[in-house]
C-alpha cells in the first residue's frame, strides 16, 4: 500500500498501473484458491494475466514464490518465474515496447516518492495559468533554489505586474535563459510545459503554439488537457476557427473542461471571453517576418513594431539585452522604444554603461534623463571595483553594489541550459 501510495506521487503516474497491481493481487488470490492438483494450469494463464495486467504478473509471481516457499514447494515457483520472465520479451514486439518497458508496462516507474520542490513548480504553473501573478511572485521570491525555471516564473510574474526592471536583479538570474525557455532535446518536460506561458502573454502566438505543441508531444501519452486548452486559446486569438473547433470539440467531451469549452465556441463566446480576445489580439504581430527559433530579440522587436505599448514585450526585450550583456542592442532598443521616459534604476545603470562605452557627449547623456545620483553611484562603483581588483577582496563591492547592473555586467557568468 505504501509503495503504491508513493508511486501515486510520480508525475508520470497512471491509474492503469494501480489496476495492474490489483490485477496481480487478484491473480494470486485466484491461484491460492485453486485446488493443488490443477495449480499447474495456472501457467497457461500467465500470458493472459500479462495481457490483462502487464507488470502485475510480477506481483503475482512474487506472492506465489513467498507462498510456495513457505509450503516448501520449489518447482512451481521456478517454472512460473521463468515463464513470467519470458512472456514480456516474447510479446513486446506486439506492443512496440523496449525490453525494459515490457517488464514494467503500464507503469512508467517502479519507485516514486513525493517531490515537494516539484509540487511547488506545479503550483507556479497552475497559478500562472490562472493569472495569479502576485501569488507566483510571492512563491518564487521565497524560493531558495537557484534555477532557470524559478527565475522564469519570477520574471514573468513581475513582467505581468509591470515591475520587471525594478525586480529582475533582486534574485538569481541564469543569464537571459530566465526570461524565455529554450526548447532543446535536453529541456526538462516541466520547462517545456510552461514555456508557452511567456510567449502567450507577450503576444507571440507562433512561438506560444510551438511551445504548447511540444508540451503536448512530451506529455505522458502525448496528451495534456492544459496544452489542448492553450492551443484552443492561441487559435482563437489567431482567428483560426477551424483549429479552435478541433480543440474545443475534444474538450467538450471531458467532464472537467466542458464548460470552459462551451464559453469559447466560435460565434458563441461569453462576454468575458470576447473582452479577453480583444485584449489579446491587440498584441499579436501584424507584420510577418522570419526568425530562427532562438532569435528572441527579433521576435520581441517584431511584437513592439506592431504594438509599441506592449510593455511586457518592451521590458522583456530590454531585460533580455541586459541579461545577455548586449549593451549595444540595449542602447538601440532603448532608443527605439523607451527613450524620452525617465529611466528606472536598472535602465539608468545600463544607460550609463552604454553611454560611457560609446563616449557619449554631455548633451547626449542629458537626453536620457538619468538622475545625477546614478552617475555618482557609477563613479563610486568604478572606484570600489578598482580597489577590489587590487586587493582581490570583492566583499565591499558586492555588499554595496551587488544588486546593480554594473555588478551583474562585471561578474555574472552565463549558465548553459
Amino acid at each position, binding site marked *: 500500500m505504501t509503495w503504491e501510495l508513493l508511486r501515486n506521487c510520480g508525475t508520470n503516474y497512471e491509474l492503469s498501473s494501480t489496476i495492474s497491481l490489483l490485477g496481480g493481487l487478484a491473480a494470486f488470490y485466484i491461484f491460492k484458491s485453486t485446488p493443488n492438483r490443477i495449480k499447474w494450469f495456472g501457467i497457461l494463464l500467465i500470458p493472459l494475466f500479462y495481457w490483462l495486467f502487464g507488470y502485475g504478473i510480477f506481483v503475482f509471481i512474487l506472492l506465489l514464490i513467498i507462498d510456495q516457499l513457505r509450503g516448501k514447494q520449489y518447482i512451481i515457483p521456478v517454472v512460473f518465474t521463468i515463464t513470467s520472465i519470458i512472456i514480456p520479451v516474447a510479446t513486446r*514486439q506486439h506492443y*512496440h*515496447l*523496449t525490453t525494459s*518497458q515490457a517488464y514494467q508496462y503500464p507503469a512508467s516507474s517502479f519507485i516514486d516518492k513525493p517531490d515537494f520542490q516539484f509540487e511547488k513548480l506545479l503550483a507556479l504553473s497552475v497559478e500562472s495559468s490562472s493569472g495569479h501573478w502576485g501569488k507566483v511572485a510571492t512563491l518564487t521570491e521565497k524560493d531558495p533554489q537557484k534555477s532557470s525555471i524559478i527565475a522564469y516564473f519570477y520574471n514573468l510574474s513581475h513582467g505581468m505586474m509591470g515591475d520587471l526592471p525594478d525586480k529582475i536583479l533582486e534574485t538569481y538570474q541564469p543569464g537571459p535563459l530566465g526570461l524565455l525557455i529554450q*526548447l532543446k*532535446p535536453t529541456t526538462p518536460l516541466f520547462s517545456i510545459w510552461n514555456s508557452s506561458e511567456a510567449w502567450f502573454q507577450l503576444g*507571440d*502566438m*507562433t*512561438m506560444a*503554439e*510551438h511551445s504548447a*505543441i*511540444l508540451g*503536448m*508531444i*512530451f506529455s505522458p501519452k*502525448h*496528451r495534456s488537457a492544459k496544452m489542448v486548452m492553450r492551443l484552443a486559446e*492561441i487559435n482563437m*486569438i*489567431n*482567428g*483560426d476557427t*477551424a*483549429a479552435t*473547433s*478541433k480543440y474545443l*470539440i*475534444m474538450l467538450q*467531451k471531458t467532464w472537467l473542461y466542458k464548460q470552459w469549452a462551451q464559453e469559447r465556441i466560435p460565434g458563441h463566446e461569453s462576454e468575458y471571453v470576447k473582452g479577453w480576445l480583444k485584449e489579446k489580439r491587440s498584441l*499579436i*504581430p*501584424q*507584420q*510577418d*517576418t*522570419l*526568425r*530562427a*527559433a532562438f532569435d528572441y530579440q527579433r*521576435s520581441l522587436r*517584431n511584437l513592439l513594431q506592431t504594438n509599441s505599448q506592449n510593455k511586457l514585450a518592451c521590458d522583456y526585450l530590454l531585460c533580455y539585452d541586459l541579461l545577455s550583456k548586449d549593451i549595444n542592442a540595449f542602447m538601440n532598443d532603448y532608443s527605439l522604444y523607451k527613450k524620452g521616459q525617465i529611466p528606472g534604476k536598472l535602465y539608468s545603470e545600463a544607460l550609463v554603461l552604454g553611454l560611457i562605452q560609446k563616449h557619449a557627449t554631455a548633451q547626449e547623456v542629458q537626453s536620457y534623463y538619468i538622475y545625477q545620483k546614478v552617475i555618482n553611484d557609477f563613479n563610486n562603483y568604478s572606484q570600489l571595483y578598482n580597489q577590489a581588483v587590487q586587493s582581490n577582496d570583492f566583499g565591499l563591492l558586492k555588499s554595496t553594489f551587488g544588486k546593480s547592473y554594473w555588478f551583474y555586467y562585471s561578474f555574472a557568468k552565463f549558465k548553459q541550459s
Partner: protein
Amino acid sequence: MKISVYIAALLIVLTLSGCGSQPNHAQKVSGQAPIYPDYSNITIPVNIAPLNFLLRNKPNKTQVLLCGKKDTLTVNGNDKVIFPIKEWKNFLSVEAGHRINVRLAAEINGKWVEYPPFFWDVAPDKIDRYVTYRLIEPGYEVWNSLQICERDLENFDERVIADNNQLGNACMNCHIHDNRNADISMFHLRGKNGGTILNKQGKIRKLTLKNDNMISPAVYGDFHPSGDFGVFSTNVIIPEFHAKGNIRMEVYDTQSDIVVADFNNNRMLQSPLISATPNSLETFPVFSADGHYIYFCTAQAVKLPEQVKKLKYSICRIAFDAKTKTFGNMIDTLWNARQTKQSACHLKASPDGKYLLFTVADYGTFPIWHREADLRLLNLQTGKTDNLKVVNSDRSDTYHSWSSNSRWFIFASKRGDGQYGKPYIAYLDKNGMAHKAFVLPQKDPSHYDETLKSYNLPDLSNNKVSFSSSDIENAYENMKAEQFK
C-alpha cells in the same frame, strides 16, 4: 419455377419499398445533413472500407438507406453510422459502376427529419489495397513519438511497421514504395545508429547515402522502376518561424543538389547539371514512370531569409540511362515558375506515364504550413495543367501518391481543422477528370476529431510490406550501415 417468380417479385417489392421506406412522418428538411466526414456526392473505389460517419447535431437515432441499382442496405445508428463490413463489401461489389443514393433520416428531440439525399458513385477501378503513412504530432522542429503504419484500405486494419519507441526515439522520415510494390521500399532512419532502411523482399539493408561530394545525407527521394536506383536530393535545410501566428513555419534550403544512388554497387552518381550548382537549388526528384527521366524542382538561389518569397521552383527534367548509369546533357523545363508565379514541389509521376501530380504554393519548399498549397495535375502529353479545383481545399493539400492503375491518388490535406494532415482519396476518371476527394474512412468516425497525429506522406501499394517493426529495431541496433562512394 412459379415459386421462384413469386420470390423474385417479392424481392423486387421489398427492394422498392426499402428504397422508399424511411421512418414514418419524417419531416423533409432542406439543409444538407451535418455529416462528418463530408462523404456527400463523392466517387469511391469498389474496394474501399465502409464510409462510417457521424452527425454533428447528435441525433438520438439515425437511419441510413443506401439505394443502389441492384441492391439496398439499411443501417440504423445513433449519432454515428457504422456499416457492417461484410454487408458493405457485398453491397459495393454488386453496385460497382453504379450510383448509390444515400438517404439519411435522424431523430432529433423526438422528431424524425429526412435530409436531402446525396450520392456515392462506385467506380469499378480498385484502389491499391494498402497505404503507408507516418504518424507524427505536427510539431515544428522536434518530435517524440513517431510511427510508420500500414493501413488496409479494404477494412480498418492498421499495423505498425516501425516505431521509434524501439529506436531510441530517433527521427524517421516517411516510407515510400517502389512503383506501388511493397516488396521494395525505403525510409530514412536518423539518430546515432541511423541510415536509410532499404527493404527488398523483406531483406533489410541499412545504407549511409552520403559521400564527400554531397552537402548532406540523402533527403527527399524516389525509386527507379527497376528498384536498382534511387534518386535523392541532398539539402541544407533551415527551419524558421513566421511572426504571424496563423502562418507558423517556413523551411527552406540554402543549398541543394540531386544525386542518384546505385543500390547494387553502393555508389552515388552525379551530374554537373544538377549537382554542385551554387547559383541554383534542385530538390524533390522523382523518376518518370519508365525510368528514362528524372523530374525535379529547381529555383534560382536568392538571399535568404530576406527574399524567401522570391524562392519559386520550376519543374524540370533530365534524362537518365539506367544501363550506362549516365545522365542526359540538357535540362528541359516542364512548368515554369516565372510564368505561373508559384512554386512547385512534391512531384509524383503517374504509373501510366501520362501525368505529373505536384503541389504548388506561393513560394518555398515547405507546403505543409502554407494554407494556399494545392495539388496540380500536369498532363505530360499535352503540357496542360489542371488546377484540380474539385480536389483542393482552402488548406494545405500535398504529400500525394498514385495508385497502380493511375485512377486514384491519395494525399495529405489539412482541410477541416487546418492543423492535422489527414489522408484524402480522389478519383481521376478515364477522361482525366478529377472527382471530389474524401477522407480515408475510419472505424470510429470521430477518429479525426480525437487524434492529435498528422498523417504524413500516404503512399499506396498493392501488397503488404514484408518487414515488421522488430526487423527495423534489429537493423537500428545491430546492423552496420553500408557506406556509399
